[in-house]
């Protein structure tokens, strides 16, 4: 696949066009640290800015101080490794980020401007000033912001290609008519990609085949997005660190990633890895980078692009290989050769990453939401869980920046274990104050197609053609939920009768003796009759629509997480709100059962005499009169 090289060269050239923009920083960094001036490629530029080198291994002298030109979780991630390596860190921040986590973690912090990114995190002058002032020897850009390719020059003659591509309908395949085997081949999903693809493909085609005529055809296969992590040094060495499967996407943004891919066999993996390494070597790439491919159902793979930076989803690679990519980037940047040989790179177990976003998954699989994290608790107490985040309780998810809350990574000996741990981790993640996409993430990872590995970049729209609607309860799950909700309700009621020091009370307390709590629970507009009774200090026996369930828990009503065992099945639920009138909203199996979302409304209404009322319903009619003997299941009160 020599075409890849050509493609990469084109990318490099394209990157060079924006060097004008990045040069000041480069010079500045050189001023403090670097003896060489990387003048020929954007990759080198990135490398220069990315690292440092001082000594984690005391024999390897690296930089004394690195400035991290980013915010949020990636800034925290980089700072962590720097700390491990004994390197001092400088954070930059905008006004509104002054008390954010990455600022607190860094040894020094410099404000580079007001909230909008163009005035702060992309404010080159201010960042330069910060570098000078703090005498940072190198800069790590993280991902996004400065690390991002901004735009490619537009090519006028690509307009025709765009017109044709539009006629065919996206996605389209652009390929050299003379070529084959992936050379000069591009897949385009929109106009912009068509223009880029047209330009690159024609260049490639011209150089490879001496014929720049192109074909544009519909791209029909269900593609998977699989990428290879590479790591190169300045001595001409490069490694491939296996692949990451990133097919679950929405609006071209990855949502769930894993490593390795369930789809690749070792032969394909090796082929892709070797080509990615060949590409990196060809452009003398010396840092961590990612070569992205589309892979069709026959395991043919097509080069998409190379990302010359640390990727958001790099932790899954770290989990299965045991490498610290940031540390390797720093070492390499200082000029040390790679410490590993290709044969040393293992695939140990399986890792999955979910991107937890502050967004509403019920609207186009995720519309950003903003707000303040009134409560926030990461599930790091569970085994095999890593959370990369840059926020804390009280943090604001603002309109200015990416609404990502964290990256939740679970790791296990195999895929099944990693996914089970992810399920638990999602259930144990406490996020209050903003809308989040836990429900969607949890649905994806338990989806049978996902579990079988039958996924593509169109997964979400295929599985949820009418949009995401939350978890659909099976009858069994519904009964469990009803049993848990009623137990919770009774637990609250019983606790309200517990007073301390009441034995000294002037007027003695006479606890009501209720053997059976007859409850009427409204869920999804259906009313269920539930009878709950104590069958032990922490166990309730609950009869739901005729079937009996035993619910056991510590019933700690202050904890945001409640671990409940229903007939021996362990569930972690979150009671998000509770009203005196009986309304509760509960997060169960990832989905919030609450008012306000059409999914389901739970209104647990006990009443001694079995009356029921919803929060917003008006009592329409009451079908009993005082003194009547009321039978179980009798309709007592009707709501409008």
């Amino acid at each position, binding site marked *: 696949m020599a075409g890849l090289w050509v493609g990469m060269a084109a990318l490099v050239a394209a990157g060079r066009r924006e060097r004008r923009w990045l040069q000041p920083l480069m010079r500045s960094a050189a001023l403090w640290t670097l003896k060489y001036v990387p003048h020929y490629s954007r990759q080198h530029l990135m490398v220069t800015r990315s690292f440092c080198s001082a000594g984690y291994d005391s024999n390897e002298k690296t930089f004394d101080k690195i400035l991290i030109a980013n915010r949020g979780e990636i800034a925290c991630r980089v700072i962590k490794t720097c700390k491990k390596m004994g390197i001092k860190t400088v954070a930059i921040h905008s*006004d509104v980020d*002054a*008390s954010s986590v990455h600022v607190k973690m860094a040894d020094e912090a410099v404000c580079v401007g007001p909230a909008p990114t163009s005035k702060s995190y992309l404010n080159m002058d201010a960042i330069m000033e910060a570098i000078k002032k703090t005498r940072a020897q190198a800069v790590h850009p993280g991902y996004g912001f400065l690390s991002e390719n901004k735009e490619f020059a537009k090519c006028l003659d690509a307009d025709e290609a765009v017109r044709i591509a539009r006629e065919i309908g996206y996605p389209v395949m652009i390929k050299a008519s003379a070529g084959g085997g992936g050379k000069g081949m591009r897949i385009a999903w929109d106009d912009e990609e068509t223009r880029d693809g047209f330009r690159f493909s024609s260049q490639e085609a011209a150089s490879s085949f001496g014929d720049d005529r192109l074909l544009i055809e519909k791209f029909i296969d269900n593609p998977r997005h699989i990428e290879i992590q590479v790591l190169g040094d300045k001595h001409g060495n490069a490694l491939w660190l296996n692949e990451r499967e990133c097919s679950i996407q929405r609006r071209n943004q990855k949502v769930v990633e894993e490593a390795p891919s369930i789809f690749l066999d070792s032969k394909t993996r090796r082929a892709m890895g070797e080509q990615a390494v060949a590409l990196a070597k060809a452009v003398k790439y010396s840092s961590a980078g990612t070569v992205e491919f589309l892979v069709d159902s026959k395991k043919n793979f097509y080069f998409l692009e190379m990302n010359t930076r640390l990727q958001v989803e790099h932790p899954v690679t770290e989990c299965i290989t045991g490498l610290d990519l940031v540390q390797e980037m720093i070492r390499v940047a200082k000029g040390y050769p790679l410490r590993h040989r290709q044969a040393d790179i293992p695939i140990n177990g399986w890792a999955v990453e979910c991107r937890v976003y502050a967004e509403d998954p019920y609207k186009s699989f995720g519309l950003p939401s903003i707000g*303040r*994290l*009134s*409560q*926030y608790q990461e599930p790091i107490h569970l085994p095999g869980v890593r959370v990369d985040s840059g926020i*804390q*309780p*009280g*943090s*604001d998810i603002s309109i200015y920046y990416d609404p990502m809350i964290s990256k939740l990574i679970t790791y296990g000996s195999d895929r099944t274990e990693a996914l089970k741990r992810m399920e638990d981790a999602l259930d144990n993640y406490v996020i209050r104050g903003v809308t989040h996409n836990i429900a969607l993430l949890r649905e994806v990872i338990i989806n049978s197609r996902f579990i079988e590995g039958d996924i593509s970049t169109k997964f979400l729209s295929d599985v949820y053609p009418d949009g995401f609607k939350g978890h659909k309860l099976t009858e069994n799950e519904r009964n469990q939920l009803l049993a848990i909700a009623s137990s919770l309700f009774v637990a609250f009621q019983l*606790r*309200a*009768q*517990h*007073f*301390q*020091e*009441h034995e000294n*009370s*002037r*007027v003695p*307390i*006479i*606890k*009501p003796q*209720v053997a059976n709590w007859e409850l009427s629970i409204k869920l999804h507009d259906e009313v269920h009759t539930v009878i709950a009774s104590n069958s032990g200090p922490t166990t309730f026996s609950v009869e739901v629509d005729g079937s009996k369930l035993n619910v056991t828990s510590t019933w*700690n*009503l*202050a*904890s945001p997480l409640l671990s409940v065992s229903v007939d021996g099945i362990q569930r972690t639920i979150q009671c998000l709100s509770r*009203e*005196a*009138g*009986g309304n509760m909203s509960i997060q169960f199996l990832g989905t919030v059962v609450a008012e306000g979302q059409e999914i389901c409304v739970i209104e647990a*209404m006990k*009443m*001694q*005499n079995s*009356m029921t*009322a919803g*929060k*917003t*319903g*008006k*009592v*329409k*009619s*009451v079908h009993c*009169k*005082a*003194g009547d003997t009321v039978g179980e299941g009798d309709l007592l*009160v009707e709501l*409008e």
Partner: protein
Amino acid sequence: MRTQENRLGAGRRAKMAAAMRVVAAGARLSVVVSGLRAAVRGLCSQPVSVHERIENKRSAALVGGGQRRIDAQHKRGKLTARERISLLLDPGSFVESDMFVEHRCADFGMAAEKNKFPGDSVVTGRGRINGRLVYVFSQDFTVFGGSLSGAHAQKICKIMDQAMTVGAPVIGLNDSGGARIQEGVESLAGYADIFLDTSYLFITGPDVVKSVTNEDVTQEELGGARTHTTMSGVAHRAFENDVDALCNLREFFNYLPLSNQDPAPICECHDPSDRMVPELDTIVPLESTKAYNMVDIIHSVVDEREFFEIMPNYAKNIIVGFARMNGRTVGIVGNQPKVASGCLDINSSVKGARFVRFCDAFNIPLITFVDVPGFLPGTAQEYGGIIRHGAKLLYAFAEATVPKVTVITRKAYGGAYDVMSSKHLCGDINYAWPTAEIAVMGAKGAVEIIFKGHKDVAAAQAEYIEKFANPFPAAVRGFVDDIIQPSSTRARICRDLDVLASKKVQRPWRKHANIPL
């Protein structure tokens, strides 16, 4: 009769005798005309035993004004008097009194048997809420529209007297067309609740208003739930419906002591008293002009984020309500920076004062969160007597002898600072967060006065901020006891309340305090 006598224990004879008297009265009246169908049938067809007549009367009392009127009540979305009681009290705990009382009016044909209803237009008795004793009366709209007769009033007074003798509260569930009863609305010591959409409360109805002031106004506009909870401040909370209201009433009852002689109940609490609250460290915005929600702070500090707010929709620039700290009931007062910057005005001062006095009356410690830029300026406020009304809040805090803990989160300017449970009003523990600014006024206003005509206003302002817009000037004078990290607020307050639980203040004797009304 005899068999019944035998069955009844000796101890119940006295009661039986009392019942007999009532039955005798009933017999006399029955000569006149028939009453309720069941009773009538019994009386007319053949002589009935006293036992049967008791049962007849009881069952008549249970249906109040009859099924037709009960249906009408339900159609309006309302529960009947008895249904309300059964929802409010613990199951099986209601002990009714005066079920046989009937009105004594003879005018306008009221003496007719068809116009007699055993128990008249109110249901009274006692019962338990979560095991704790309470007396209750519930007006029965199905009987003469719940209007207040002499017998009706007598029944209410009777349970009030009983409640007084044992030291237990009275809850009144008002549902009456009679104007006079509205005076008694403030049952349960200041807690009034009326139901959204189905309740109205006014001194004079829309018709009278029209004839006197020529204003066109609907019942809802004049005295509906929205009016009273947002504009007049007459009602303290409004609820969606009867059930919601009664459930909330049960919850509210758990915050209160049975009487002013008792401590507030201490509830079982699962929330650790030493819980750190990291989210508070960043809650106050860096710009001192930016608003934040004081309710967020309250939720984070109190037990299990449970806050029972009183008058949430009236004078929203001040927040008052009940919560618990380590299981112990506390009254919370807080300025709300989100509304009118948290300024004190007439309505918020009165709202706050009323609440502070309520807490003081019932031994409930006060926790005050301060972020107040001052009193609201303007002619409307001055002409309305803001000085007089502001003084009520000041007086109430000064007068209160319950434990008082104050936390200054940000601004504490001028006279409003003094008013908000400051050290000068004998606050027991006064804290400042690092973001606190305790000063006579904000930097801008102060500089305009001090440095009038000064050239470099910005520098002067900066100097003022450096000198005064921080907690130190107050701290060095001992006006605040400590500057604390916001995240430790909960732990500090819980610890303080433990110590202050034994607080005792002796005041010189006086007939009553003289609050500037």
